[in-house]
């Protein structure tokens, strides 16, 4: 399946990626090549095959609902681009 420029723009929007207009033709070509390659999977009959989510078919391990980690908010927020009073700051969302 060959992707056109508007589809590439939509995918980039869904992925929250800013891409430049000049790069769109190359993305369209690369992504189309990859999808064409992936479409070989249609040759395989997978009727009634259970999808494999985990190589060992393991299930999610559960644990008791207890606090096990120390509070390191200050250490973690030291790496944030912008914080104030223990909160992460982002550009205004609501006017």
């Amino acid at each position, binding site marked *: 399946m060959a992707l056109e420029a508007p589809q590439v723009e939509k*995918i980039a929007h*869904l992925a*929250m990626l800013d891409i430049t207009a000049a790069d769109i033709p190359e993305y369209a070509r690369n992504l189309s090549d990859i999808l064409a390659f992936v479409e070989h999977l249609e040759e395989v009959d997978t009727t009634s095959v*259970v999808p*494999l989510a985990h190589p060992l078919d*393991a299930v999610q391990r559960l644990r008791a609902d207890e606090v096990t980690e120390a509070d390191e908010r200050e250490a973690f927020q030291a*790496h944030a681009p912008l914080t104030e009073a223990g909160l992460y700051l982002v*550009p205004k969302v609501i006017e």
Partner: protein
Amino acid sequence: MHDKTVVELSAALSRGEFSSEELTRACLQRVAALDERLNSFITVTEAQALAAARAADARIGAGEAGPLTGIPFAHKDIFCTRDVRTSCGSRMLDNFIAPYDATVTQKLAAAGAVMIGKTNMDEFAMGSSNETSFYGPVKNPWNTATVPGGSSGGSAAAVAARLVPVSTGTDTGGSIRQPAALCGITGLKPTYGRVSRYGMIAFASSLDQGGPFARSAGDAALMLGAMAGFDPRDSTSVDRPVDDYSATLDDSLEGLRIGLPKEFFGEGMDARSAAAIEAALEEYKKLGATLVDVSLPHVGYSVPVYYVVAPAECSSNLSRYDGVRYGHRAAGAKDLEEMYKRSRGEGFGAEVKRRIMIGTYALSAGYYDAYYLKAQQVRRLIREDFLNAFADVDVIMGPTSPGVAFALGEKAGDPVSMYLSDIYTIAVNLAGLPGMSIPAGFADGMPIGLQLIGNYFEEARLLNIAHRYQQVTDWHLQAPAGFE
């Protein structure tokens, strides 16, 4: 001392021939003198390394040393290291000083191993040539006009060039085995769940697995023994005792049944690599092994399955990089959406963006069944092929890579051609099996790797099979010119 194995270095440390501080300084000096030609390190941690070496010397002096105590090594820059930059080869994390240690980091530190730095890698481990790194490509020490393989290219090049005796890597589709093959060293990808993924920056969570690089199977055994084990902090870690990987290295291979998948020996393999693999198999026959033809009928679909599953998981895992809590934030955005998009647009390189977009597309409304579900179904068929083969054989062998190291830039503009360089390694990740690559010869002076694939949790058997071959061959002892 830089050409010695860990086993030899450890004995010399305990005899007091030299101290860990002297050994660590020697490694740091080699990095300073030689790494300009390779670019295998992103960060060198000299002060921390010397402090760790002095602590190791005290431990050795007190008679409390283990086999890795005082041994210098390097971490792939995907493992979080507290108070040290952990970049994952990306501009996105160029300013990220990890606030905690990965479990693998903790375990190697507890064993007394001395980290001297963090190695270069493809951005977020996405690549097969180490050319997608924000910090520039790594060069192969055997020929600096060629790639070292990827994504753990820096860790492989550093060990091949004798800058460090051992290092860590991660393998999602071949990222330990392929660079080990291209750099002429020993690399091991354990069974999925054997080594904790906690603090190992996620790419594709159902495939990612950490493991060691070394110049011998014996050294890889020591590293894996320290890295492996159950970790409650990793929800997919397997609760099962760790074998003593060194104890069975010398076991006999008499009666060993080696499976040769016909799909691995067909078209596409370089003739010189094929000849080297044939010669290696002859050595195994002399060691008492029997060769058995097997078939993995669906293995040819591994690369397309991988390029749905891995991008889908990557698009989900990398959604956390949003410029809010850590990592790169674009300056001057006027609203939140623009801030997200520009931070991610600036922070990620082209290959990472391609994979995020493929994954986003494969998981988007209307396409999930056709791509992701279909890929996971074929993935089960690939796994069943291996299980059927292992009903009849003890180990599967074949090439690690279709050819020797390719030239820098040769495949950079063609993603699908690059993806096909992992054609023999990817199925192993999809099935979650352990795999190794060991040196098995040269073509035009460039190393060729032999791949060994074992059944689940048979790392000890793989290391034994690799070690016995290394006792009767000397491919693994060859050093690249200029780095002897």
